[in-house]
């Protein structure tokens, strides 16, 4: 079977090779257009933009404002021009890519012509795009006349103007029109064009094709990163943060390469498979962790970090079922389509982006430790309270080094990270081939010592026409990443936790220069020692590519076959010297030192074939049909060996290890096969509709439940296209859709199979054990979503507005359901229940300005409400961990714990039972006796909040004045809570941990002192760890000043002098400030990203504050 598919692939390759020499037929370039009711000018501009034609339309008798509809597919340019100028008596001269159009009319009287000529003044100038690159093919019209020219490849134009007070109007497809008043004193004009805020003609990438926004009937968010919106981030998900309504992204850690949590329209599913599907240039990629699991103390690294954000042309987020259903499987959580940059016809453009930045950990004052005196005072108060209450004689503490200033451990392990990044790209193209090639070198330092990520990547996108009936394309990306890691996850060595949990008088080194350790003087692991005595890194080599052939069978009918792959090789190295606690010498490792060396290979191969048909009928109906098949096979293999005993720390390969203490290898595979189809209908541009159907089979399900079926339907109404619509400059579109999407993520590759596993060995003899119960009833998780949307624009697009409401019912949720252990298993994978997400999304964008000053703003907000609607077997409450509950009627991610009501101010306030049996006194926490039985137990747990925000979004403002540009970007999230799992520094005498200054200073010392922080009491866990309780649950709402960017484009005069197209310099302050009530580092924290267990902090390093300086060059 495996050989079979290899054979087919080979077959495909051979065919492709044969094709390339078999049909040596030369062909004229062909064009396709699908423009409805546009001006002749727009149609011409479309040809300029998409096919790089250059036009000269120089007569008065051609009506370029006449509205036409041009629907052609793969016709000659003449044929297309016939349609554009239908009804006008014109003739064309096509010379390569230069076209001149003249009216066929009787020659005017020679006198008049001479007279006109004598009056004309010649103006010359140059047109730039928003990036200050010269704009080829822009249209220049003398306003009020039909006198027009277009700009050349260098952006320059020259026009003879006849009027007395002439105004030149500049236009280009997808850009705002711009009028310039001419004056006779200045004959050289510079014009900068701005992209249209929201154009209905803008093309949007959808699954297996592109559509114009006008034809879109579903909820799709788009983000095209502009120069001013770039941030120095490692992966595309971080770039998207706050940009698109309904897409909530939280960056749970400031460690370079750490993964973010991306949720589109609320919680998609219960398992960790909550991430959207990422499709990069048509290849669905693995975004999940790229670790081998050898390093248990770090946060897992995102699989997205290997894609360079600066290669991204646009990101489309398919939010509703109607748009995502074409991706059926895995689309329950939405689809993020990333399109990388491609070349355009013209002279090569070289672009260099370089930046460097400094970053620091902000808000460290929130973790200030109690000084030695304050700590001892608190401890002794705790002991006094204990002795008094229990009649004991526990000894008081003595400050071992009174008056010694607090040693700042955080300073020892944190630093100012210095990062640099350089990307160079070359793009261009000829008649038949277009290319984009880029190379990136990146060095990003974390704020923790020795934590850094180095990356080198190469990217090339090439596309072209082989024959008139055959085109091809290939996108390739190769990358190498080395991530030097430190402990930052849920671990005792977590760099911040270990640095904070030290007595104020202790230091990293003993007086004799040896490490201070928990074995000699310290109370906790030495964070500096853990970093310095280890060498932990993860290397990732990744090749992501996609090649296709597109056959234009007959006009309108295309067949495309595409082969994509995502290969990655990982090498993980976890080395502890004999001086690291993980490598201390011991009886079985007398020399000390340990090395875990592991490798992982991942391969994903996808082959897709689509047949598409496009046809316009004369009575106004447009039809577009896509049919396709896709097969994907994913394979993973892993090998790990651990050696112990190294002669010295300079030996760090296992061949010198005294002993191999562990060796392991594993291999898994799964496959997906899909059939899909889509029909788009368009009636006179007024009514548009889409139907899709996809059937997906997954090897994770039993044959009888293998296939899931995901249909969708959507309708759109362009009200402004109705004949009765007279509101000029206002457009309106209504959309409605319904559809189903599936999910099978994050269940085991063999989830349905009841298995007996090997490896259950004893005393070096092979054994077998019943490892999984399996579940043949397991089937696709399915979400049915309805969406209603409206798109409006006013003032010719200067103000636009999009609103969507949605309702999403997810049923057959896949979950590893906890089960009574008498069945033999503590959980089994099943379709556990259903949930609902309802939401509202708003996006408002506007731009305004006068003369040199312009403002552009985007604001988005989304409200999502999640509710669990059904659980299998009518289970009452399922606790996925110690902090959360799943309960019907409540949100997924609800916190479930004992609620703190305040502090007992007087002994008399304490209920008798608690006073007698629990030793509760004034100063202790009042817990809510939820079940009213007089005791505080696990039965008093209640739902007390949620890890999900009530609303969230982003707000971007860009101000431009002449060549100066200021961009201020904010993100916000309101209503979510986070639990501080790290309670060590807040225990106030229960245990002898170092304490936070804020806890000690805020402690209860007598009636009326505080109602928030309890008294210090030795040996009693009532106030701290006895119950998971709301004392440690905090509001984590925030408004973050995400980035402030100041950019300056050097004047083009200077540029010409140094023969460059453009130079932009910019400064950026990222993560400038965060307004929040969260009392510790970063409110966007969680040590895992599972929806059901989200929002728990373990002193994760926060996102750094970064100051960046950068320059973009183009020449």
């Amino acid at each position, binding site marked *: 079977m495996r050989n079979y598919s290899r054979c087919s692939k080979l077959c495909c390759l051979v065919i492709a090779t044969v094709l390339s020499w078999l049909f040596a037929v030369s062909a004229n370039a062909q064009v396709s257009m699908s423009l409805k009711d546009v001006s002749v000018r727009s149609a011409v501009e479309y040809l300029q933009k998409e096919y790089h034609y250059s036009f000269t339309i120089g007569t008065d008798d051609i009506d370029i404002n006449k509205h036409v509809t041009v629907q052609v597919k793969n016709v000659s340019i003449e044929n297309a021009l016939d349609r554009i100028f239908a009804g006008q008596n014109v003739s064309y001269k096509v010379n390569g890519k230069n076209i001149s159009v003249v009216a066929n009319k009787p020659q005017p009287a020679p006198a008049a012509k001479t007279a006109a000529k004598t009056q004309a003044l010649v103006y010359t100038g140059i047109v730039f795009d928003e990036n200050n690159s010269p704009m080829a093919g822009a249209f220049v019209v003398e306003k009020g006349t039909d006198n027009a020219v277009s700009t050349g490849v260098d952006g320059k134009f020259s026009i003879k103007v006849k009027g007395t007070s002439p105004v030149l109007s500049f236009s280009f497809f997808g850009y705002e029109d711009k009028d310039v008043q001419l004056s006779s004193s200045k004959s050289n004009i510079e014009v900068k064009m701005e992209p249209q805020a929201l154009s209905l003609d803008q093309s949007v990438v959808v699954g297996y094709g592109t559509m114009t926004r006008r034809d879109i009937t579903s909820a799709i968010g788009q983000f095209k990163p502009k120069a001013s919106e770039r941030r120095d981030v490692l992966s595309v998900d971080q770039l998207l943060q706050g940009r698109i309504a309904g897409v909530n992204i939280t960056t749970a850690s400031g460690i370079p390469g750490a993964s973010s949590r991306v949720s589109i329209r609320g919680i998609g599913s219960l398992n960790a498979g909550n991430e959207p599907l990422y499709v990069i240039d048509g290849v669905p990629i693995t975004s999940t962790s790229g670790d081998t699991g050898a390093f248990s103390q770090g946060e897992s690294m995102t699989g997205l970090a290997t894609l360079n954000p600066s290669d991204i042309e646009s990101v489309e987020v398919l939010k509703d079922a109607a748009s995502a259903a074409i991706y059926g499987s895995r689309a329950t959580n939405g689809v993020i389509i990333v399109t990388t940059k491609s070349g355009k016809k013209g002279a090569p453009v070289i672009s260099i982006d370089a930046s460097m930045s400094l970053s620091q950990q902000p808000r460290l004052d929130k973790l200030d430790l109690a000084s030695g005196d304050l700590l001892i005072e608190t401890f002794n108060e705790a002991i006094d309270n204990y002795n008094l209450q229990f009649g004991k004689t526990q000894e008081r503490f003595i400050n071992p080094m009174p008056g010694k200033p607090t040693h700042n451990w955080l300073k020892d392990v944190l630093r100012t990270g210095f990062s640099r990044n350089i990307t160079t790209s070359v793009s261009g193209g000829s008649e038949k081939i277009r290319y984009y090639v880029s190379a990136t070198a990146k060095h990003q330092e974390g704020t923790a010592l020795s934590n850094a990520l180095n990356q080198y990547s190469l990217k090339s996108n090439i596309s072209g026409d082989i024959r008139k009936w055959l085109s091809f394309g290939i996108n390739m990306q190769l990358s190498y990443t080395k991530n030097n890691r430190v402990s930052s996850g849920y671990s005792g060595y977590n760099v911040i936790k270990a640095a904070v949990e030290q007595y104020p008088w202790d230091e990293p080194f003993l007086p004799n220069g040896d490490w201070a350790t928990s*074995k000699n003087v310290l109370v906790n692991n030495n964070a500096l020692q853990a970093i310095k005595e280890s060498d932990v890194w993860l290397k990732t080599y990744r090749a992501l590519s996609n090649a296709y052939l597109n056959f234009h069978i007959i006009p309108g009918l295309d067949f495309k076959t595409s082969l994509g792959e995502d290969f990655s090789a990982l090498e993980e190295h976890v080395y502890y010297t004999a001086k690291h606690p993980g490598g201390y010498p011991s009886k079985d*490792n007398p020399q000390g030192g340990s090395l875990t060396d592991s490798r992982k290979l991942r391969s994903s191969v996808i082959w897709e074939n689509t047949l598409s048909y496009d046809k316009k009928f004369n009575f106004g109906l447009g039809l577009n049909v896509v049919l396709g098949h896709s097969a994907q096979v994913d394979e993973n293999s892993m090998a790990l060996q651990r050696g112990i005993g190294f002669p010295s720390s300079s030996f760090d390969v296992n061949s010198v290890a005294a002993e191999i203490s562990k060796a392991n290898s594993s291999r898994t595979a799964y496959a997906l096969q899909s059939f899909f189809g889509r029909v788009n209908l368009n009636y006179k541009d007024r009514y548009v509709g889409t139907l899709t159907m996809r059937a997906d089979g997954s090897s994770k399900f039993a044959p009888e439940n293998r296939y899931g079926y995901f249909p969708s339907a959507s309708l759109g109404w362009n009200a402004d296209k109705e004949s009765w619509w007279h509101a000029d400059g206002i457009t309106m579109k209504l959309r409605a859709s319904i559809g189903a999407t599936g999910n099978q993520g994050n269940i085991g590759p063999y989830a349905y199979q009841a298995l007996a596993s090997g490896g259950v060995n004893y005393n070096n003899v092979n054994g077998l054990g019943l490892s999984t119960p399996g579940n043949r009833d397991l089937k696709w998780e399915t979400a049915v979503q309805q969406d209603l949307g409206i798109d409006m624009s006013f003032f010719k697009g200067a103000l636009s507005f999009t609103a969507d409401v949605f309702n999403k019912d997810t049923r057959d949720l896949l979950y590893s359901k906890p089960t009574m252990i008498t069945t033999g298993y503590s959980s089994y994978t099943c379709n556990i229940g259903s949930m609902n997400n309802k939401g509202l999304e708003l996006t408002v964008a506007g731009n305004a300005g006068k003369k040199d000053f312009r403002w552009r703003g985007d604001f988005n907000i989304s409200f999502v409400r999640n509710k669990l609607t059904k659980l299998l077997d009518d289970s009452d409450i399922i606790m996925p961990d110690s902090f959360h509950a799943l309960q019907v009627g409540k949100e997924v991610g609800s916190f479930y714990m004992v609620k703190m009501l305040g502090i007992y101010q007087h002994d008399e306030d304490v209920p008798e039972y608690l006073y007698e049996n629990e030793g509760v006194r004034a100063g202790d926490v009042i817990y809510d006796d939820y079940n009213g039985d007089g005791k505080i137990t696990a039965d008093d747990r209640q739902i007390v909040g949620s890890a999900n925000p009530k609303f969230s979004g982003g707000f971007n403002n860009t101000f431009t004045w002449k060549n100066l540009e200021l961009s201020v970007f904010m993100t916000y999230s309101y209503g979510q809570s986070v639990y501080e799992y790290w309670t060590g520094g807040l225990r106030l005498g229960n*245990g002898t941990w170092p304490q936070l200054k804020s806890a000690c200073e805020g402690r209860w010392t007598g009636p009326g002192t505080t109602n928030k922080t309890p008294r210090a009491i030795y040996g009693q866990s009532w106030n701290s760890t006895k119950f998971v309780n709301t004392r440690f649950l905090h509001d984590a709402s925030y408004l973050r000043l995400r980035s402030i960017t100041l950019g300056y484009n050097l004047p083009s005069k200077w540029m010409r002098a140094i023969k460059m197209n453009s130079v932009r310099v910019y400064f950026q302050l990222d993560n400038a400030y965060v307004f929040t009530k969260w009392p510790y580092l970063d409110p966007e924290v969680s040590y895992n990203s599972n929806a059901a267990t989200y929002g728990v902090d373990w002193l994760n390093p926060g996102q750094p504050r970064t100051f960046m300086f950068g320059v973009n060059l183009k020449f």
Partner: protein
Amino acid sequence: MKKIILALLTASIIISSCDILDKYPHDAVSRDSVSEEDLELLYTGLYCYSQYKPGFEGYFQNDMTGGDFFRGGGSVWPDAPSWIKDFFLPTNGWIQAPYTGYYALLYQINSFIEVAEKAPQSDKVRQMLGVAYYFRALDYYNIVTKYRIAPLMRVTSNDPQPNSTEEALWAFVNEDLEKALAMCPEYSTKYYVSLQAAKALAARAYIAQGKKAEAAKLADELIADPLFALDDFSKIFRGEANSEVIFTFANLPEENGIKFAGEFLQPATIYVPVPEVIALFKDDDKRKSISITVDGSETVLNKYINKSSSDPIIISRLAEMYLISAEGKGLNGGGLARLNELRRARGLQDLSPAPKNEEEFIDAILAERRLEFLGEGFRWYDLVRTGRYMKTTGLPEKYTVFPIPQRQLDLNTVNLQQNELWK
């Protein structure tokens, strides 16, 4: 060109027709394909599961809840009882984990017995069944001594199970022990269950049920067995050949071995012996240097020292038989002599002054067991079964039984009830 497209279409149809969706694991087989031929493999699996399923907590709980240890590091409690009060809770993972381990193991044992009982009863199959009954008896011994009431399952089942009474559970333990005694193979190595191991477990179970004579009889048989003799602690706990261990799990690290050493030794040192028990070790006690040692700033348990590997888990050794024999015979039935035999072997003098009555003799035996088995999982139940727990620790009666884990009660609301003392 059309031919080519046709070829591609055909290729894609071919691909779709051959099912690429059949994928199978490389480290497991379908359960349906497991047959009698696989009995030996499943049998080896039983050893592996029996060894690791109870988890570290399962083996160590009795030491901790018996008050011999407290938590070290920064999370210090002033004394063992206050730690016990905070951790001995139905919701605490520390209490919950072993329960799930015992039942997950039971499922594997019962599954094995179901297949093996159907197979032709060759000598080999009979012996394997005997060992399976031994494992089930050991599992239920742990369950009944800790929880008193619990679901009794002779066969696997997915239905919600009710608790059975303490008597029924003991009867089931005895029934399995009898089968094990009849079917287990003779002793060959300490890493496998033998007839002798079954006797040792039976002696332990009988003394717990107050069947003193039966317990003493079995213990004496083992003491008389030429295969075994008391041996040095340094051999027993340092992985050397010795004549004392009757049955121990090999607990190899690559076979899900449980790492004990890391819990007791630096740098983590989570569990530290209480000062009282440290002070009890006399200097001439040969057990002392292996039982405790000074590591960094603390005196720690020294029985398990393989930090990056693991130590064997001893289930039965001859010293226990001496102490069961002594307890079974009683002060005046020859018990004191047995106790002194052990003391002399450990480098100590005869007990002096000699206990005046049975009660004092039991106290003496418990004191000896405390030193002999520190960190081996006996203390709590020793105190409970002899009715000394509340007096010794000052804790209320409910701590003489482990609560049924809250999570299991939540998952089986139909049939499962909390222990009366914990309601």
